[in-house]
């Protein structure tokens, strides 16, 4: 049981982090708060992916050593390097995150210039009033 918890507690941490972001995205009225929640949510997912690439033991970054001599004559001990594939995927996801952030910020500024407020309920009120 203890073994199980040690092996899985960190997944639960990430899920908790994700849910903080998810809650902020849905419950907060302020648009910038929603964007902050979005950011937290996405980076927690990235953390989850990265944690799949971890190998316990004597592990280093996935940059091969002894690269200077010859053309890959060395047999690479894969247990010695972290799994590179999730890293690659998450590089993409980080960039997607920042791109979404840029567009969301631009839309937020458009909304503010039209309604002079960032609270969602006030915006809806001012739309109702015409």
């Amino acid at each position: 049981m203890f073994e199980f918890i040690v092996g899985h507690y960190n997944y639960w941490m990430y899920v908790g982090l994700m849910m903080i972001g998810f809650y902020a995205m849905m419950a907060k009225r302020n648009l910038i708060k929603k964007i902050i929640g979005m950011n937290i949510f996405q980076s927690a997912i990235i953390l989850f992916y990265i944690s799949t690439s971890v190998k316990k033991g004597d592990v280093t970054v996935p940059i091969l050593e002894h690269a200077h001599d010859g053309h890959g004559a060395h047999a690479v001990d894969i247990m010695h390097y972290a799994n590179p594939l999730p890293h690659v995927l998450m590089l993409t996801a980080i960039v997607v995150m920042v791109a979404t952030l840029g567009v969301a910020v631009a839309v937020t500024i458009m909304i503010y210039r039209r309604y002079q407020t960032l609270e969602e309920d006030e915006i809806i009120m001012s739309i109702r009033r015409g």
Partner: protein
Amino acid sequence: MILPLDFILILFVFICAVAAITIKDLLSAVVILGAYSFLMCLLWTEMAAIDVAFTEASVSASIGTVLMIGCVAKTKRRSKD
């Protein structure tokens, strides 16, 4: 990967995440979000994902924070929740 360090970093990440969504001053919230990104980046360095950590440090913690600060500067600093 060192377990106590991992624990401490995750604790800080949690504190930053909760603080970022509860603080009413938006500029502080955004800066705390920058701190959150930076702690995330430390966490990834510690998990041997050095490229991801570098990207997060340069993309999310710097440019992302700058964009958010721009957004707050162009709009309002106070929020109701």
